[in-house]
Structure formats: structure tokens, C-alpha cells
């Protein structure tokens, strides 16, 4: 049985690895270096990295407490809230872009209000971050919620019984014990934000994040010119992902 299962599993792995491996092999080191030096490519990668990171950081402030509530508190419509959080995973990315554009475009109330504060969404950094956050928030919230839920409530009870306030219990017991899941959720949200294309292209074609740049080069010049950018960007993504994962993986696991 294990042989059959291994063969089937091998097919799946091949399906994932082969396209990526082929793409990397088709880009010569020379072309790679040249592309990596391309000002437009570098600029777009930097933009993609910092917008995704900023979106993750800004939304974490509200998303982690929400995750804690979902793990611990009982309230009406909890199922509805849990479902809502999963919505962005199910909604087609281009449709998500359309929805965000409907709220944040210059002629809406929200768009005007933020415009008065000097924050432009359409074709602006704020728009990119909103699009990234919209599609990637579920990853952070779900991972954090599961992390909090895995912390035996007994520890929080003991802390409360010893006289700690709810907020002290949250910061000294719940967050440290769920830290692994929270960090992993942050990494996932950051990674998912970087990879977003559909929602961003609709709300902000310019300034151009790398996924959009790849699409543009493909449309304008064809596969051969889109490939090196893809390879360089994927490399950057992987380096970031692996480094972040290994940092967060170092923390010991308290529970399984």
C-alpha cells in the first residue's frame, strides 16, 4: 500500500515541482543577474515586499485580538463571523478587486474621506495594501485563532486565579503560548499578500507590484521576457519565506 501511495504522492509532487524547476532551468545565470539588476524589476520587488509587510503589520494589531475572541469568547453570530473571515478565500480575486474599488474609488464616501487625509487608494500604495490585506487576512486570523485555541484554557484560568487581569493574562500567557501560530500566521499573510495579483491589478495597476509586472511583460513581450522576472521574484519570495519560517520554527512547541 505504501508503494502505491508513494507513487500517487510522487505524481502530485512532480506536478508542483516540475513547472517551477523547468522555469528555473530555462533562465540562465546571466539573464538572472541581468533581470535582478533591472531597475524596474528591483523597484517592483521592493514595493511588493514593503507593501505586503506593512499591510500585515497594520492589520495584525486588530486581527490578533479578533482571533483571540474567536478562540475564547462565546457570542451570538460567532458562526457568521467565522464564515465571514473565510470569505476572502472563496471570493475570486478579480471580484475582490472590483468590490474594493467600489468602496475606495475617488468618488465614494470612504475614498473621499481617506483622500482628504492624503491617502489615495486607486493607483496608490494604500490601494495595494488594502487589496493584499483583503485576500490574506484569513491566513493570519485562522492561524492565530487555532494557536489560541490550542493553548489549554487552564493556563489562563490559573493566571486569572492568581490575580492577573485579563489583559495581563492575554499578553503574558495567551500570546507567548500561541506565539508560534501567530508568527506562522504573520508569515503566511505576508507571503500571501506578496503573491496577490488579481485584486491588486484592478485597484492599482500602477505603481506596479511584481505580479502585475510579470503579467505586463508577458502581455507585452511574451513568455520569454516574463520568465526571468518570475524566477527572480520567486527566489526572493522563497528566501524570505524560508528565513521567516526557520526563525519562527526555532521557538519551541509547547503543545501539539
Amino acid at each position, binding site marked *: 500500500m505504501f508503494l502505491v501511495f508513494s507513487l500517487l504522492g510522487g505524481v502530485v509532487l512532480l506536478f508542483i515541482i516540475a513547472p517551477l524547476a523547468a522555469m528555473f532551468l530555462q533562465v540562465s545565470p546571466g539573464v538572472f543577474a541581468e533581470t535582478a539588476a533591472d531597475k524596474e524589476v528591483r523597484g517592483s520587488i521592493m514595493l511588493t515586499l514593503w507593501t505586503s509587510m506593512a499591510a500585515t503589520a497594520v492589520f495584525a494589531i486588530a486581527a490578533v485580538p479578533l482571533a483571540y475572541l474567536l478562540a475564547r469568547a462565546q457570542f451570538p453570530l460567532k458562526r457568521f463571523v467565522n464564515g465571514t473571515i473565510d470569505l476572502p478565500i472563496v471570493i475570486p480575486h478579480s471580484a475582490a478587486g472590483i468590490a474594493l474599488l467600489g468602496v475606495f474609488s475617488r468618488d465614494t464616501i470612504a475614498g473621499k474621506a481617506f483622500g482628504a487625509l492624503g491617502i489615495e487608494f486607486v493607483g496608490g500604495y494604500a490601494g495595494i495594501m488594502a487589496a493584499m490585506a483583503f485576500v490574506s487576512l484569513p491566513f493570519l486570523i485562522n492561524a492565530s485563532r487555532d494557536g489560541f485555541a490550542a493553548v489549554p484554557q487552564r493556563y489562563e484560568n*490559573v493566571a*486569572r*486565579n*492568581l*490575580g*492577573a487581569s485579563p489583559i495581563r493574562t492575554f499578553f503574558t500567557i495567551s500570546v507567548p503560548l500561541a506565539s508560534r501560530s501567530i508568527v506562522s500566521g504573520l508569515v503566511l499573510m505576508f507571503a500571501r499578500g506578496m503573491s496577490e495579483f488579481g485584486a491588486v491589478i484592478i485597484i492599482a495597476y500602477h505603481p506596479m507590484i511584481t505580479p502585475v509586472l510579470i503579467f505586463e511583460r508577458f502581455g507585452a513581450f511574451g513568455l520569454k521576457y516574463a520568465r526571468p522576472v518570475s524566477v527572480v521574484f520567486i527566489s526572493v519570495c522563497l528566501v524570505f519565506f524560508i528565513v521567516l519560517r526557520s526563525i519562527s520554527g526555532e521557538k519551541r512547541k509547547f503543545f501539539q
Partner: protein
Amino acid sequence: MTPPDSGEIFVDGIRHESNAAKGPQISIVYQDQALFPHMTVWQNIEYGLHGRVKAKPERSARVRALARELQIEQLLGRKPGTLSGGESQRVALARALAVRPKILMLDEPLSSLDIRARAGIRSILRELNRSGITMIHVTHDYEEAISLASRIAVMERGTIVQSGNPREIFMCPKSEFVARFTGIKNFYEGSLVRTKHGAATTGTFLTGPLTMSVAVDARPGNGFIAIRSEDVTLSLAKPESSARNIFEGTIVDIIPTGNGVEIAIDTGIDIVARVTGQSCSEMNLECGKKVWVQFKATAARFIPAASPP
């Protein structure tokens, strides 16, 4: 914590707040200790002192004093994951005691420990108790209960069915559940009839097909008879004895235990006798063998039913 549906807790007449920082403190020690795994032993013990004791030197002094008292000074720098069960339980006790509780609530504190660690924790608990702290000790182990408690309340299906000091519980179990809990093997429901034989008043207890003589002064009525298995003796021939209760029966089960062998005899009802291993082999006791059981009327304790069934 599951919030209670209703009810209030008063300690020395003062209402206990669900927020432990106010009012009298009830510290809870859990069966699995629940030490904070990401903190050192020191940080665990000190945890409840933040906000209670402002000065850091005083906090340190308290932690150190408790660690000395519970003999865990050498563990202060370690993480809970590296401790043995007994060590963890000491740390958990130190953490609970650090906040100087009025009441220490112990939830099966010995059940997750091995035999050796149990003895250590048990003697610590006994000393703590002598030092004046009130302890509420939840356990399903009868030996543990009587070895530590001054008062016992037996709960069955969420309700306290009997409470009293260990002796009362042991001598007068009010139900079969409590009797089994205290290790009494022979416990029968039936009714007591009063009979007079000259000067002495004896009771006759009817249970199933048997009629037993019971030396009681209680009023006739329904109730229970409890007979300790040590008080039941066996013989191969019909004994000539002053014992008032002599029944013939068949051995249905032989159960070796720590001190002796328990023999179950079907005399119409099952009666359990405890004999020494030696007599068991000398008498060649085995399942199916006919034997006579006897016990004195004074060995059969009558416990009146609380209310008419």
C-alpha cells in the same frame, strides 16, 4: 473558567470575587499542575505576586522562602517541561501559596504522581494543613481522603450524599455508593424487625432470603446492614459457636488482595469474607466448595435509611 450558573462563595463571611485580585483568595492547584511552560519555575512562583507585591526584593524573598519550604530551591531556574511529576506539584503548590490564599483548593493533586512522589506531596499537604491553611481536597481515592481530611463530603452524581468526619463516613455509610467507596464489601438493603429475648434486645434484619441477627437499639424500619469482610469467618463444618449468624453457602469467587484473600460465598446473597492466604490454602478453599459463614450480631452494623423508600 466555566462561569457558575448561580451561587456565591463566602470566605470568613466575605464574598469571594471572581476576580481573584480582590477579596479573599482561593488558590487552585490542578491535577496536571498547569505550570506555565514558557516560564521558569521562579517566574511561575512569582507570577501571582506582580500587582500584589510592588517591591521586587520582597517578591524575591517570598519566592525564595517558599522554594526553601517546599525544597525546590535547586529547580528555580528550570523550565516546567524538565521537572518530574512530584517536582511539578511542589512548584504548583508554591505558586498557589505565594499569593497567601485563605483557601487552597486541590483538584486530585496526587493522582498524576507516582507512588514515591505521592508520599512526599502528601506529607507536605499535611504540614500545610497543620500550619493553619484551609484546604479543599477533591479526590476519588478513599485512602487519600481519610489520610488527609478532617471532614469528608462524598459526592455522587454531582450531589453531596454524605458528609462528616472520616470516622463517621467509615462507620455509618448512608448508601451503598458510600459503603463501596469506603471499601465495605458486604452492604445489604432490607428491613429491621425488633425482637425481645429476655433482657437483651436484638434486631432481626431481613434481606433477600436471609434473616440476620443484629445487635442494635435502633427503631425498626428499612435500612442497610454493613459487615466488614474481616468480621466474617469461614468453616468447613457447621460451627458450634456463639455467633448468631451462621449460613451455609457455595464459594463463587476467590480474590487475592494485599492483605489476605477475599472469598465470595453465595448464601442466597453474596457475602464476602476476608481470610489469610494461609487459611485459604489450609482449608483448600476453591470455587464451588460448600462452606459455612458466620459473623457476630455485633459485627453487623445497622444503618437506618434516611427516608422511607
